[in-house]
């Protein structure tokens, strides 16, 4: 571990993956909230032919050139999706699936074609499939930092517009905000976030970097700003964690490792996050069930007492057992009601409502009528 942190190559790789995780976390939050997670998947797959074409045309493997190619192809894919959904009766998910597979297919054909080139300069392009963090050099990191930084600046500048666009585009439209251009802008930022991660994470799994940190972050907060920040941190940590693991063990592909790290965070978040987590949900349900059961017993005592002149008329446990067959639960509930002072135990061993219990019953019945 220490030897890695001191290592220049590793520091470069960690910095690169941290930055790309941060950017994809931020833009991913908006994509997830706008239900555009699958658009991210389509864009990343669709970027592959762009990488191939950029290389064929320029013969260069400079990160910026390949990223521009990938970005243009990814962006073109979103336009094609838009055109298909607005001009034909094909639905959004159909258009996404179609565009994803067609573009990805062309990309694979181009990569195979490039591999037959006589010189060896094509080596490394296939790392775009599953990602290759170890190949990150200083020049890549600088490119990632500049593009990602620009995307974040735009996101912050138009924060409130993007927020309204994501929550209620129709209302934004009624305020004569340029909704279509804002939509295009936010989608373009998403394309940038995807493109800067392609070489490291790979086209196949890049969409997980968009979805996972955001999905995990949503579990922990109810505030958009906080959600974006948490998502950025999760993205960065997953990026560094995955890069660290895949660099320290040979033959461990970077993309899948990063994605597994992010997925781990999602799993933990879905289970233990307060309020939205599964554990929390289960506790709440159990408590609610217990409360409803004890209310039911109280109301049954109320019903039984109504047949007598006084609400203090006691009834034996056996009478309640008819309605609450689980004896141990019934006894526990009776004891709990007793400790709350809602019922009293009679010398004969019967149970009766106290005045407070009576009032509670009236309150409950009132609420039900309303």
């Amino acid at each position: 571990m220490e030897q890695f942190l001191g290592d220049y190559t590793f520091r470069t790789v960690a910095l690169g993956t941290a930055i790309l995780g941060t950017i994809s976390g931020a833009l991913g939050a908006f994509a997830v909230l706008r239900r555009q997670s699958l658009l991210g998947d389509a864009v990343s797959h669709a970027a592959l032919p762009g990488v191939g074409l950029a290389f064929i045309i320029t013969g260069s493997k400079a990160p910026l050139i390949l990223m521009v190619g990938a970005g243009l192809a990814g962006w073109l894919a979103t336009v094609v999706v838009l055109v298909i959904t607005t001009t034909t009766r094909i639905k959004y998910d159909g258009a996404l699936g179609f565009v994803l597979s067609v573009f990805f297919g062309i990309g694979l054909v181009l990569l195979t074609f490039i591999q037959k080139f006589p010189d060896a300069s094509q080596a490394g392009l296939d790392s775009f499939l599953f990602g290759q963090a170890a190949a990150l050099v200083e020049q890549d990191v600088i490119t990632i930092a500049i593009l990602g930084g620009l995307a974040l600046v735009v996101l912050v500048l138009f924060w409130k517009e993007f927020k309204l666009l994501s929550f209620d585009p129709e209302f934004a439209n009624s305020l004569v905000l340029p909704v279509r251009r804002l939509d295009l802008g936010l989608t373009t930022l998403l394309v940038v976030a995807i493109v800067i991660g392609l070489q490291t994470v790979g086209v196949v799994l890049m969409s997980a970097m968009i979805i996972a940190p955001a999905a995990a972050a949503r579990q922990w907060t109810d505030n958009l700003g906080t959600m974006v920040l948490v998502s950025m941190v999760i993205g960065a940590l997953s990026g560094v964690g995955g890069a660290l693991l895949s660099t320290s063990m040979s033959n461990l592909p970077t993309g899948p490792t990063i994605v597994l790290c992010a997925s781990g965070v999602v799993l933990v978040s879905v289970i233990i996050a307060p309020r939205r987590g599964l554990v929390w949900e289960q506790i709440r349900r159990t408590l609610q069930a217990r409360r409803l059961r004890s209310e039911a017993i109280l109301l049954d005592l109320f019903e039984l007492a109504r047949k007598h002149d006084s609400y203090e008329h006691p009834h034996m446990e056996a009478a309640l057992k008819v309605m609450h067959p689980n004896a141990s639960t019934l006894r526990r509930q009776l004891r709990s009601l007793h400790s709350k002072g809602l019922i009293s135990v009679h010398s004969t061993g019967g149970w009766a409502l106290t005045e407070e219990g009576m009032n509670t019953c009236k309150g409950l019945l009132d609420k039900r009528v309303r």
Partner: protein
Amino acid sequence: MANAIEVRDLTVAYRESPVLWDIDLDVPSGGLMAIVGPNGAGKTTLIQAILSLIKPAAGQIRIFGQPYRSVASSVGYVPQRGSVDWDFPTSVMDVVLMGLYGRLGWVRRPGRNERTEAMAALDQVGMAEYAHRQISQLSGGQQQRVFLARALVQDARIYLMDEPLQGVDATTERTIIELLRTLQSLGKTVMVVHHDLQTVSSYFDEVLLLNVRRIASGPVSEVFTEANLRLTYGGRVAIIKGAS
């Protein structure tokens, strides 16, 4: 009395069939108008057309004699409650502040003045104590009141509301009706898509009966008749109390 909204020969069509067909409508300034009609009559579409949210196939709409774009800041919109995701990570205050985004302009963030205004609007709909609630924790009626508060901060001259009374509790209904009266007393023009024929006469003074075509419009006392209702609902309408 001058007209706040004038609609001429408006036709809106999705694919082949018209949703609104050759609508002419005058909404008097300061009027409180209900839009009623069966499902699919084009009530929401009419509101959206006035707000320029959809492009009509033909016809034109003038608001205070001008196209929507130039008077957008004078028009407040209360969309249907179900049109947004209420699990969105934001607070009641944030949603109300969105009503001021048009006025704030680019880049500027809402500040203390805007928060004060939003708080006043929330107070007006009885939601001040919920300002910092997450919106997913609200009941349907409370969601509706938040949307109303968001329109109120727009301080508009015309309010267009899509089914604000749909499925709300009694408290919310009372609050909204009081609010409509207040808006009217301030000289605002209000159009409300409404579904409860029983209450049209007591809540509104103008009514538009709509079923793809304009069946009738004008003062409730004149046009809210059984004959017109039959024309609107195609004879499927049962006894209407309060219809003259």
